[in-house]
């Protein structure tokens, strides 16, 4: 039912700083910019990242479905789970460059948006910085009720569980190992927006670029045991994290989901330092700092 990830819309205090981060740190290509909104391209999609101020009340994740009729179908299925979904207004659709839209909140309170015919770019992606981004890869979401939120993804959207790490779950709906990961948390919210980079060289070059710019690296560089992705997770505007990821295994449809350990153990096979509480990391500055020779 879900075709693909489309965008993340984040509410920020200060558009200028957030936009500078998107361009200078992530190296994304600026698309639209007003006093209230800044949008960025990372691939064939018109935009995959939006920073807004004074328009949206909540951050949201955008997913593409194929036909307007799918929206009606999803609305009734969500209704049977007790979730009231609402159609997006023409103005909301226009802002998202989509033909039709349905939105709702999951059991944790994360706002999910389903859009039909969102705009692709006729021009290829041209990065602001040579970070080697090839596209929006996956999004990690906080969940206060993983079991119930899984029911939305699997029963309504048709996603499948690829693997577990503790109570966290990796969900797939195309060939990738996962497009969504739900991590147990005390509140709702997007935990990390993850962009794929070409290869390990780009990931590690970005590591040193980030170190030189004194961007807080919160996890990695490392490799995830479940997806075999290389990752580097760092602080972004507000409380949303961003990651560069690379490599990773395609899902083998013949196998069943595997259970990996909770926390750092299950999230990195290299033993990298972790400062993300939802990942079982230290937030008190504990743990020895790694000093790569940047």
């Amino acid at each position, binding site marked *: 039912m879900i075709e693909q990830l489309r965008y993340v819309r984040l509410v920020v205090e200060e558009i200028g700083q957030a936009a500078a981060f998107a361009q200078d740190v992530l190296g994304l290509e600026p698309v639209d910019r007003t006093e209230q909104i800044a949008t960025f391209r990372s691939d064939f999609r018109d935009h995959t990242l939006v920073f807004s101020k004074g328009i949206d009340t909540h951050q949201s994740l955008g997913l593409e479905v194929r036909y307007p009729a799918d929206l009606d179908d999803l609305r009734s299925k969500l209704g049977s789970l007790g979730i009231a979904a609402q159609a997006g207004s023409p103005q909301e659709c226009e802002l998202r460059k989509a033909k039709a839209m349905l939105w709702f909140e999951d059991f944790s309170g994360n706002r999910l948006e389903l859009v039909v015919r969102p705009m692709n770019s006729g021009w290829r992606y041209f990065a602001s910085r040579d970070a080697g981004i090839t596209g929006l890869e996956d999004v990690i979401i906080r969940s206060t009720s993983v079991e119930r939120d899984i029911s939305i993804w699997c029963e309504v959207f048709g996603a499948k569980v690829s693997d577990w790490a503790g109570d966290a779950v990796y969900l797939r709906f195309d060939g990738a190992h996962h497009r969504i990961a739900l991590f147990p948390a005390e509140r709702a919210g997007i935990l990390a927006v993850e962009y794929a980079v070409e290869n390990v060289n780009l990931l590690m070059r970005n590591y040193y670029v980030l170190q*030189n710019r004194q961007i807080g690296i919160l996890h990695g560089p490392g490799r995830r045991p479940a997806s075999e992705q290389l990752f580097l997770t760092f602080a972004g505007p507000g409380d949303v994290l961003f990651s560069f990821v690379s490599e990773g295994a395609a899902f083998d449809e013949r196998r069943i989901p595997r259970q990996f350990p909770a926390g750092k153990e299950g999230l990195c*096979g290299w033993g990298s330092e972790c400062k993300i509480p939802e990942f079982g990391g230290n937030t008190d500055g504990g743990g020895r700092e790694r*000093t*790569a020779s940047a």
Partner: protein
Amino acid sequence: MIRLQDISYVRLGTADLEGATNFATSCLGLEIAFQTKDSVYFKSDQREHTLCYFTGSPADQTAAFEVAEKSDLEAAAAELDRIGHPVRVGTEKEAELRRVRSFIAFTDPTGNNIELVWRPAYGSRRYHGERDAGITGFSHIGLCTTDAARDEVFWTKVCNARVSDRIGDAALLRIDEVHHTIALFPTNRAGIQHINHQVESGDDVMRSFNFLSERQVPMVFGPGRHPTSSARFLYFEGPDGMVFEYSSGVRSIADELLYRERQFPFGPKGFCEWGAKPQIKEFRN
């Protein structure tokens, strides 16, 4: 022409044999092969030993290379004698300790102690490290040179090494298909500049970066990737200031006729394509 077949082992003096042994096993991940009262021999691959720490001066360092025939030893001794490098023939007892049939010892023009060995022993039992560092074997050394041009001539004209690339005046030399087995780094002393062990994958390099960092082993360069050999690397400091390297993915040069050495800048960009900056004296201006 002295035909070097492979690098065999390094011998390092130390004032603290116990400390060095502890580092070699629990940090570096080597396996103790055998020991005597004042020396410990370590295994890193199928060979009986590839590293020896002995009680002595840390400045007393030796690198050994294997030759194919006993006659190669005799020819090498004659050639070295002819060009004015005194040669010492190892005693039977010394040879036995090194697990070789026979060897000769001499110094290169900088004064580095070199041994040529014939029939070094291979083990029947495979290497099993003290920790899972993923080591596949002892692979190359950096050697100090006080005159890069002079020593390059010695290793390429008197011996059979070929230049694979240069970083500034530092020549990376191959004696087989492996991009380099000897690297000559200009400095003001004689000695072994670094000791390399290959590991299975880039993952192993990164795991060791975290493992050794947690144990406060000083990281002196990397994690990074060499633009010359394409290997992913990590350099860290061991006992007596010796620099050790793990690397993976070194380039192989199969076509001797078509390959041309390249010149890279002597600076961070010549040493790393990821942006790591070396804290190693011989890698800095």
